[in-house]
């Protein structure tokens, strides 16, 4: 037998975005190198770290656990932890201490399991670095760990994640990491300064979302499928399912969504057989993809020519329960749904950085739930409800429980 007690755990970061992967690499290098080694993609890893907040459809999670590994879910406090065998949860902001604790615990369990196997004479001779199923042979007696300790952030010095995941004093719900990722880092501009003004506009025609919008419109008007030809590959709007089909992996898709590459894009009516459609490996709800693409393209900017001083006309609420949202989204939409306000007024009245407002407007414009109102130009002033302090407490409560 060749049991390697205290071998390093193999940890897969495959289901995390690049920034989180890099940050965790930094963690592990400095704090956890004696216990674990990281792999971006390894089906035989002992442990998967999965960002639960990235998976709206939790049914796909079993598919991620191809070899029944241990799983550590990272999630924000609004997201319900997953309670399953060999599953552990760490709430954001992620603290090294607790991540380390969970990894140590898993490591111990694996070693204990191997010792048990030796004692019981099982023919399980592989080291933990080569099998993950093996460690799953005993059910975990540990209840899922919801870590929510508010101290011990002092030693957490990784610049990016520190900025990103540290609990904000303003809100603990949607962390800065997501917000920064989605709305960029543009500072508020002075609209009277032409140089600053340039920074907040983008040309939609250069971005994927614009072409998706055009394709879906054309498809819906003609009740037909649409082929979207780009320099980098094709996408397909399937009219019946209202989904966009493509074969781009996550990283490539994210790049496409956020990069100004699509000036050469062509949209043509098309009709593929069901068999041909299956050649596309990924199917995404069209509205959801347009929404996300518009956010990624915007990053705190609005389409060229957008008036910053005319009022917003909100026509419907986006289906926020099923769309990617970031900080302040509900607050901004609530203001527009009840008051006539311009983009700049919204920022000043709500005291929210302009980039959040511009990004949300861009996404709502793309799914046609808001536009600029050319008729009504009187901004209304927001008044506070006398129960404001109670409302504030309720919000704090629901975000923190």
């Amino acid at each position, binding site marked *: 037998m060749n049991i390697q007690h205290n071998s390093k755990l193999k940890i897969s970061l495959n289901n995390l975005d690049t920034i989180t992967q890099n940050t965790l690499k930094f963690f592990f290098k400095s704090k956890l190198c004696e216990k674990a080694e990281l792999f971006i993609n390894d089906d035989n890893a002992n442990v998967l770290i999965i960002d639960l907040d990235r998976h709206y459809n939790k049914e796909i999670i079993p598919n991620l656990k191809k070899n029944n590994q241990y799983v550590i879910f990272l999630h924000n406090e609004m997201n319900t932890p997953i309670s399953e065998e060999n599953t552990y949860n760490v709430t954001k902001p992620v603290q090294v201490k607790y991540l380390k604790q969970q990894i140590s615990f898993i490591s111990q369990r694996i070693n204990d399991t191997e010792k048990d196997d030796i004692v019981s004479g099982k023919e399980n001779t592989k080291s933990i670095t080569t099998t993950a199923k093996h460690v799953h042979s005993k059910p975990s007696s540990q209840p899922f760990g919801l870590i929510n300790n508010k101290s011990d952030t002092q030693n957490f010095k990784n610049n990016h994640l520190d900025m990103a995941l540290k609990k904000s004093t303003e*809100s603990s719900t949607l962390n800065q990491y997501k917000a920064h990722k989605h709305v960029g880092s543009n500072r508020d501009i002075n609209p009277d300064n032409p140089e600053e003004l340039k920074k907040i506009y983008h040309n939609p025609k250069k971005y994927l979302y614009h072409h998706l919008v055009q394709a879906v419109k054309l498809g819906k008007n003609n009740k037909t499928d649409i082929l979207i030809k780009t320099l980098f590959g094709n996408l397909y709007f399937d009219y019946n399912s209202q989904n966009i089909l493509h074969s781009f992996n996550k990283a490539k898709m994210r790049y496409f969504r956020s990069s100004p590459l699509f000036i050469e894009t062509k949209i043509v009516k098309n009709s593929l057989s069901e068999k041909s459609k299956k050649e596309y490996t990924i199917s995404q709800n069209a509205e959801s993809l347009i929404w996300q693409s518009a956010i990624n393209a915007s990053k705190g900017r609005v389409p060229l020519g957008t008036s910053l001083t005319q009022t917003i006309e909100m026509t419907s609420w986006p*289906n*926020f*329960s099923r769309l990617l949202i970031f900080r302040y989204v509900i607050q901004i939409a609530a203001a527009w749904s*009840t008051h006539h306000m311009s983009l700049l007024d919204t920022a000043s009245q709500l005291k929210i950085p302009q980039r959040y407002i511009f990004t949300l407007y861009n996404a709502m414009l793309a799914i046609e739930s808001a536009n600029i109102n050319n008729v009504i130009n009187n901004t209304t002033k927001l008044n506070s409800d006398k129960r404001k302090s109670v409302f*504030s407490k309720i919000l704090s409560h629901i975000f923190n429980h």
Partner: protein
Amino acid sequence: MKSNHKIIFSGPVGAGKTTAITSISDIPTVRTEEAASDETKDLKDTTTVALDYGAIILQDDTRIHLYGTPGQKRFDFMWEILTNGGIGLLLLIDGSDSNAINNLKFFLSSFKNFINKTSVVVGITKQDVNKKYNLQDYQEVLDKGLPVVPIFEIDARSKKDVSLMVETLLYTLDPKISI
């Protein structure tokens, strides 16, 4: 003495009011369900005959009462009593019901006075079970102009979804709330 506030959950039979309250309540939900004996019997085995009660308990012990109205129209006399002094209405509509659009119209109309004084957020449930209409279909029956009524597809079992409805309700009442 601490102030008490309440949020009202309403909607037709089987829309998920009891479940939604349970999702966010900090206390065990008080259910007044009885075996269904009328037309409700075809929809579910038990139904709320008086009201459901749950509560959010804030750090300073302030209670936010969560009341679920009975879904049957013959209990509509209770709705006005229950809504008195309420913060706002969370209206749940069963999206798998072919009568869902009419139900939305009926409940918005029934609670019109309360909604005009406060605010409403609509949650369409069971869209993943047997969706009868798209969100646009529901949006089309609403009045145009401000305020724009929030309508979301929700899972009443999901704390996250129900919390989103509460968050939206509060921000529509006061977009300047800061936390």
